[in-house]
């Protein structure tokens, strides 16, 4: 379960005339286990900011965020690291990896943190790469030279190889063709059926409908400016 209670978020740009940008005031949001919430609203309204606050990338000025009843507190980075290791998965829009590391190893990595059986982890990585139509010939290459859609699927594979209790998805299907998009959406549905609390940004309405997501228009619940 993911809960955001009375969140206030603003950015202060010290080097640009101390400009204050208010993003949220009194933001409340709750995502139950086995539920998918889709954030909607025009770009710049703060959809990604919500995911980043939940993942701990962004601080917030007041209110509380609880992940499975565990409060996010930036005074204790160690706890956020543990939370990420055990509880929250995050599929970001862009792949950020060390150059020259093979795709298969990148996908295996999140599982290796909790499972030390190399062979078993490799098998699971191979399976999800096959599911996502990543050609076998590519597995031992770095994804940095792949097409946009392939990179995105590697990112999805990495984020979905484990069964995280909470899942954050930032446009996981943005650059995919329809066939691959459906494959990814089905994988997401599987995670929901396993009881994950899922919150995401999906640019197209058909995806949101397909996932049977509860839609939340950010413009209506945030009171920025």
């Amino acid at each position, binding site marked *: 379960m993911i809960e955001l209670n009375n969140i206030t978020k603003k950015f*202060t740009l*010290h*080097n640009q005339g101390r400009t204050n940008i208010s993003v949220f005031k009194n933001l409340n949001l709750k995502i139950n286990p086995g539920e998918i919430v889709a954030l909607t609203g025009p770009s710049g309204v703060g959809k990604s900011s919500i995911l*980043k606050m939940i993942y701990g990338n962004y*601080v917030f000025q007041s209110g509380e965020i609880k992940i499975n009843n565990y409060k996010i507190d930036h005074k204790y*980075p*160690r706890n*956020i*690291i543990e939370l990420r290791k055990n509880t929250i998965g995050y599929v970001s829009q862009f792949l950020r990896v060390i150059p020259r590391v093979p795709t298969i190893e990148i996908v295996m990595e999140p599982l290796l943190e909790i499972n030390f059986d190399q062979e078993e982890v490799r098998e699971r990585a191979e399976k999800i790469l096959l599911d996502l139509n990543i050609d076998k010939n590519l597995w031992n290459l770095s994804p940095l030279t792949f097409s946009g859609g392939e990179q995105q699927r590697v990112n999805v594979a990495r984020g979905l190889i484990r069964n995280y209790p909470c899942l954050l998805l930032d446009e996981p299907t943005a650059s995919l063709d329809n066939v691959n998009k459906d494959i990814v959406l089905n994988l997401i549905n599987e995670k929901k059926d396993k009881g994950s609390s899922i919150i995401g940004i999906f640019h197209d309405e058909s995806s949101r409908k397909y996932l049977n997501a509860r839609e939340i228009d950010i413009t209506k619940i945030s009171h920025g400016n």
Partner: protein
Amino acid sequence: MEPILSVQNLNKYYGDQVGCKNMNMTLYPGEVVGVVGESGSGKTTFINSISGNLNPDRGKILINKDNEIINFLEISESLKRLLIRTELAFVHQNPRDGLRLDVSAGGNISERLMSIGQRNYGNIRQTIFKWLDKVEIDKSRVDDFPRTFSGGMLQRLQIAKNLVTSPKIIFMDEPTGGLDVSVQAKILDLLRKLVRELNLSVVIVSHDLAVIRLLADKIIVMKNGEAVETGLCDQVLDDPQHSYTQLLVSSVLQV
């Protein structure tokens, strides 16, 4: 889980000049802490002060060795030396500072082993080969002198030399500093694998925020000898709070 290294209120002065002051850090097993800041901000003074290379003027350094807390600045010099050879390791920016260039590659790796009392030639030779393999240096180079190695190979040799006695805490000062980018990627990959496989705890100094983002869990941003911002690595880089960190992050060129 208890921290493996804890630094409290550490100060180092050069005469009247501040090297670093009021520095605090907690490092847990398996964790990587990145220290960033511009040249002259005190990064290297800090890492040298906590690794036994420099004597700080004030503060505490607590090392957890098998659940025994060792007050690093108050133990005898000989115990300190032993800790530096066994529990700690220091990887220099310039591998020539961390290696003996007139001793073979194998000899460099075996030095720490011998210094802790290993004498069996066969065992030592085996450990050397294991480590050459780990850092991807061909076995056939074992008797060659480091001066015949490329920069990237030298850095990998220095890493092997340091890790051979299974130290728990690794200090690194710009480990990819002098290397071209393709070699840098290889070293980064190697470091990440070793951290995970051996559950190493690492303090790494770098001015390269991209390197820190890929390796570090936590970050300390230094300016004029002081920490201006600390926290979760990608939080500090994605949503920096201090004006200096904001300046640092916004000054990075995008590729």
